């Protein structure tokens, strides 16, 4: 038994069914797609692009913004759908056509929230994202009519028990829902160690989920700099602040007063590096009443993060060493090791969160992956 390529991509285009979902298969583009590029990110919309020859007869069969497309990655590790979405538009040149595709999450940017819809003191998942998703899915001629509603969870605060809730003034005013869901997920995990994420699954049945904490520490892959084709590890020292101030309301006097906190050990190391912030939301914090104490707790949490800001590590693994979405998912953490310049000891050695992946593939050259960790 043998195969031509250890990494083979397949691209299949589907027509739309009555619900606007993927219907009957229309064409296979394995022999036609010349340069395939796709990317997926945690809580970000995904894109896929490929080119075809200008006069390829299959081009006439595309129905832009209607047809669906799936990209399958076929390797000894298994067959995985790495991208599912719609064919969006062509870009013609004299020789080629570049075809742009969006994943299903991207269509949330074409879904608008209501005007002045208030969500005071609501849990993020079941009481905001859930209802907004239902509105997006059930509106007449919704592009999400075919998407099932899956698990919608409420992100938890630092205690790991209490659901985070909005304050009494929270609401939406004609946002696009991609931004709303992104903001909900990112804010919900900003002050915790949770990985709050939303998705529309790539595999059928396509399902919308909002997870309160989906992250598993994986040991099936690790990214060691010396075993990679290349890597990009930029320091984060320019982001460090260790003395932060904010303005809070003094409950005794009723006056706006400055409140500041300092990370002593960081200050001792880096000297005093100041900044000021304005706390508008209280996500992730359930401790302390009244609101003043919550704001103080929020500032303490922000100080913790800003004195050791996250690092972006971009790994270029050797071909075939990392199989995206095989026994792993965005949000999982992998061990990353960066040696220091003396080759004695490590600049960085620890688990980092998988936040994105992009890939380029051609039949002849094979695959080049970029794996983003933070």
């Amino acid at each position, binding site marked *: *038994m043998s195969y031509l390529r250890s990494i083979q991509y397949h691209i299949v285009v589907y027509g739309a069914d009555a619900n606007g979902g993927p219907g009957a298969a229309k064409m296979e583009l*394995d022999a036609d797609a010349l340069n395939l590029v796709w990317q997926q990110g945690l809580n970000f919309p995904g894109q896929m692009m490929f080119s075809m*020859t200008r006069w390829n007869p299959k081009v006439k069969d595309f129905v832009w913004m209607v047809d669906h497309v799936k990209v399958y990655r076929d390797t000894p590790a298994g067959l995985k759908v790495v991208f599912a979405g719609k064919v969006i538009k062509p870009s013609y040149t004299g020789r080629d056509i570049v075809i742009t595709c969006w994943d299903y999450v991207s269509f949330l940017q074409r879904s608008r929230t209501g005007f002045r819809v208030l969500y005071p003191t609501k849990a993020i998942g079941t009481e905001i994202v859930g209802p907004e998703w239902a509105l997006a899915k059930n509106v007449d001629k919704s592009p999400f009519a075919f998407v099932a509603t899956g698990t919608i969870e409420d992100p938890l605060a630092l205690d790991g028990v209490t659901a985070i809730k909005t304050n009494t003034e929270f609401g939406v005013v004609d946002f696009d829902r991609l931004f709303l869901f992104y903001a909900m997920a990112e804010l919900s995990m900003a002050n915790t160690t949770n990985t709050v994420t939303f998705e529309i699954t790539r595999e059928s049945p396509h399902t919308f989920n909002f997870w309160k904490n989906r992250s598993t520490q994986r040991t099936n892959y690790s990214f060691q700099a010396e075993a990679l084709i290349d890597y990009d590890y930029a320091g984060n020292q320019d982001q460090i602040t260790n003395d932060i101030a904010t303005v809070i309301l003094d409950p005794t006097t009723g006056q706006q007063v400055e409140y500041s906190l300092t990370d002593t050990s960081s200050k001792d190391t880096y000297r005093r590096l100041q900044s000021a912030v304005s706390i508008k939301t209280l996500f992730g914090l359930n401790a302390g009443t009244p609101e003043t104490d919550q704001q103080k707790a929020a500032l303490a949490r922000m100080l913790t993060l800003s004195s050791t800001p996250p690092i972006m590590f971009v790994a270029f693994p050797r071909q075939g060493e990392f199989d995206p979405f095989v026994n792993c998912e965005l949000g999982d953490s992998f061990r990353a090791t960066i040696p220091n310049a003396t080759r004695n000891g490590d600049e960085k050695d620890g688990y980092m969160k998988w936040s994105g992946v992009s890939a380029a593939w051609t039949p002849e050259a094979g695959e080049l992956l970029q794996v983003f960790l933070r």
Partner: protein
Amino acid sequence: MAPHRHQATWRSLIFNRRYLDNGTANPDNPANLLTAYANSDYYLDSLDISRVSVQDYREMRQFLEGAEPNEAYEGVRALNGVGRIVATDVADLEDKAWALNESMSVAAVRIAAQAADPVGVLPFSFKRDTAPVTGVENIPATKALRFYCRPGPGRPVSIGRVREGLIRPFSFQLIAFDPFAYDEAETQVALVDLADGMNTITNPGNVYTRPRYRITFSGAGAAEVWLQNVTTGMNGTPKALRLNLSTSAAGEVWIIDTARGTIYRLSDGANRYSTRLTGFISDFWLKPGGNAIHWSVGTGITSVRVDFRGAYA
């Protein structure tokens, strides 16, 4: 490589026509020369088929050919021919020179290849010697092969000059964007067992080739038909193509073209890819040697024929 010992053809040109190229005559024996062409011929003295590069020339190929799928194209092979026009008189010499020009014209070939298969390229056909040898003259057997080509730029070269007599040297270059040579004759093998049985298809070449499956229907096919090449696959699992053939009708012929990734009705080219349930057509290449092909249900099917040319790297 022995094109210089046999006849070879490119479009309407016949090189080495003076050779009695019937497969049994010894080309080394002057007695076998055809006297009618001994003094009126394109003498192909050498043909260099060196692979230019294995790097990706798809962009250039796209530009030249316009509409071909890329799957089989993994490099470029340049066919550099050198020889002499030998003519009976000056008129014959000039006519042959201009016929050579036309046959190697990029524009003329582009037009001639518009409806060719593959599109945009034409076959350069030749023979090579091969075992066994027979007779007291040790006459080798021959194998007829072809490259699919387009003319290279800046060729042909055949320059008339004073006191040239009736012999004019020439050179030409053909570019084969698919570097593989293919059997001149197409192999056609019918699947004998369409009822959950195994069929053996032998690719006589030494590299993979991509066949067409030609399905002739006697009525509606089954709603679920499995096609598997048990010889190929990954991790011990053969690749499978699952089809719903229930929309077929008696008398129809459908083609599964594994090179282009298409399924269509032969009579009008209507797209039948919607019958694909799972699997990928591109997985159904034939490896060199025997291939075990499994076809699950023959309902409504008169015959399934596998058409291909053996490929040689």
